[in-house]
């Protein structure tokens, strides 16, 4: 997903000549193509995320569309005030790209887990939030990121996520994507755990549960009316995300349900702070009951 996104961005930067890529001394072999094709629009800002984000704001004030790029929490938490004040308050065309969403950097340990990032990006003024699930969603996110005006956070997986969609995506910003319609329950999923969630839904359907699956590549803005329409009469929801419960997809859907008086019953499938073991992404998700079998089992138990 990461490579697909960067490749698409590199392709589009030939047309969009105001695109800059600002790396936080990361991206070896991933960003080389962009750097070679557009040397004046590629900057390695060094291990200095505050300056990286501030200078991106300065570039954007002059009409550029800079993408900052680093791992998980480095381009977000480390420079949060620059994102809040310099980028978001001034409503600038800066894209913050975080690579290694969720538990992508599993064996690297907690410092590299991006599991609270959605929560800190959601309240910021003007900030759009994109969390693609697979390479096809990532390509569409790259296209949307160039068409959109204003700050944007883009959260990418990096472990060779399989295609969840068969065809190229053409969704608009905020549009929920229905892959399966169900009446017993629906899984709402964001980010690279989507493919696993879809497998779980298919497994549940094979067991007789009419479970739907909706992918949310955009968390902000979110087309709530479209989501409500897709859900039809289904009021039993499971939110699926590689993120902690607070402030992520679960929180978002709970807020919408209460505010719009939609009456959804929502169960979170998310990541705790205390992980039971060390391991790669797949190993950790399995240990947390967030592999396809675990998700199916947990939903089945709730529906029974």
């Amino acid at each position, binding site marked *: 997903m990461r490579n697909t996104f960067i490749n698409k961005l590199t392709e589009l930067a030939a047309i969009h000549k105001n695109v800059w890529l600002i790396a936080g001394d990361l991206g070896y072999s991933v960003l080389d193509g962009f750097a070679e094709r557009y040397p*004046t*629009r590629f*900057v390695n*800002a*060094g291990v*200095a995320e*505050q*300056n*990286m*984000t*501030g*200078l*991106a*704001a*300065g*570039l*954007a*004030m*002059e*009409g*550029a569309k*800079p993408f900052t790029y680093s791992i998980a929490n480095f381009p977000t938490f480390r420079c949060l*005030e*620059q994102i809040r*004040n*310099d980028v978001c*308050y*001034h409503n600038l065309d800066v894209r913050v790209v975080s690579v290694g969403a969720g538990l992508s950097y599993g064996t690297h340990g907690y410092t590299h887990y991006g599991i609270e990032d959605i929560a800190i990006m959601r309240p910021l003024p003007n900030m759009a939030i994109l969390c693609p699930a697979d390479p096809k969603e990532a390509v569409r996110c790259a296209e949307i990121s160039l068409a959109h005006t204003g700050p944007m956070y883009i959260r990418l997986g990096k472990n060779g996520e399989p295609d969840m969609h068969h065809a190229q995506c053409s969704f608009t910003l905020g549009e929920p994507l229905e892959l399966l319609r169900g009446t017993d329950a629906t899984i709402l999923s964001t980010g690279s755990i989507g493919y696993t969630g879809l497998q779980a839904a298919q497994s549940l359907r094979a067991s007789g549960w009419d479970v739907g699956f909706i992918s949310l590549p955009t968390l902000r803005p979110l087309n709530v009316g479209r989501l409500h329409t897709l859900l039809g009469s289904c009021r039993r929801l499971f939110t699926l995300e590689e993120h902690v419960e607070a402030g992520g997809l679960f929180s978002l859907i709970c807020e919408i349900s209460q505010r719009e008086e939609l009456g959804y019953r929502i169960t979170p499938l998310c990541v705790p702070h205390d992980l039971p073991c060390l391991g790669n992404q797949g190993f950790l998700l399995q240990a947390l009951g967030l592999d396809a079998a675990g998700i199916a089992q947990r939903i089945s138990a709730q529906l029974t």
Partner: protein
Amino acid sequence: MNELQTEHYRALASRIRANCVRMVAKANASHIGSSLSCVDILAYLYGGWLSIQPGEPKWVERDRFLMSKGHGAAALYATLAEVGFFQKDWLESYCCNGGKLAGHATHKSAPGVELSTGALGHALPVGVGMALHAKTSGRSHKIVCLISDGECDEGSNWEAFLFAPAKKLGNLVVIIDYNKIQSYGRIDEVIPLEPLADKLRAMRWDVREVDGHDFGSIHGGLSAFDASGNVPTCIIAHTIKGKGVSFMEDSLAWHYKSPNEAQLQTALDEIGER
């Protein structure tokens, strides 16, 4: 600099100072000491050194001035009003309910404010981005960033201090308002900056030390600046917190206090603008 020019800057600075103390007194606001220490620098910059068009604040060829020490907003607003970015009666509701001008520099309602600041250590990285863009696109305007001495504690500034020479940003000027007092003590007691000039020279900046209240000295420090060069410039401006009002000078207390009516009148007498 001839006598006539000096008098132009001195008169401008006096009007800015007087409005600063009036604004802070009326609003019962803080930071008068921080505002007064940089008034002469602002008077020199806006009195002629910056290429600007107050009637067209976003004129694309303008020099960019970033007020990183956003708590010195009273001085910035008073300066912008003096040179015509907005009407002077806006100053009367500075930091007041319903007013246009917030206690820290805010771009949304004040034409001429390039960047909203107040959280310290923000403007220099933004200025670096502006300078990088101008250099890359072959444009000749300069980027000037005024930072405080206490603000030099912020790591973000040192990230930018490292980065700017690496990218040969000769179109960037940082002016440090070195009044020797930060929020909760003297610089030398909190985190000493010395030898500040040596530090920045070692980081490949062209460093000039000036008297930040002497227009000839400020002029001399900036006279060699060449935006087409390859070395960023740092002006260390030695200043006095509260400069121009004797009882406010070199005092930590006037980082926070606001003058009462009697103190305001005394201040205006000393400034010569009553």
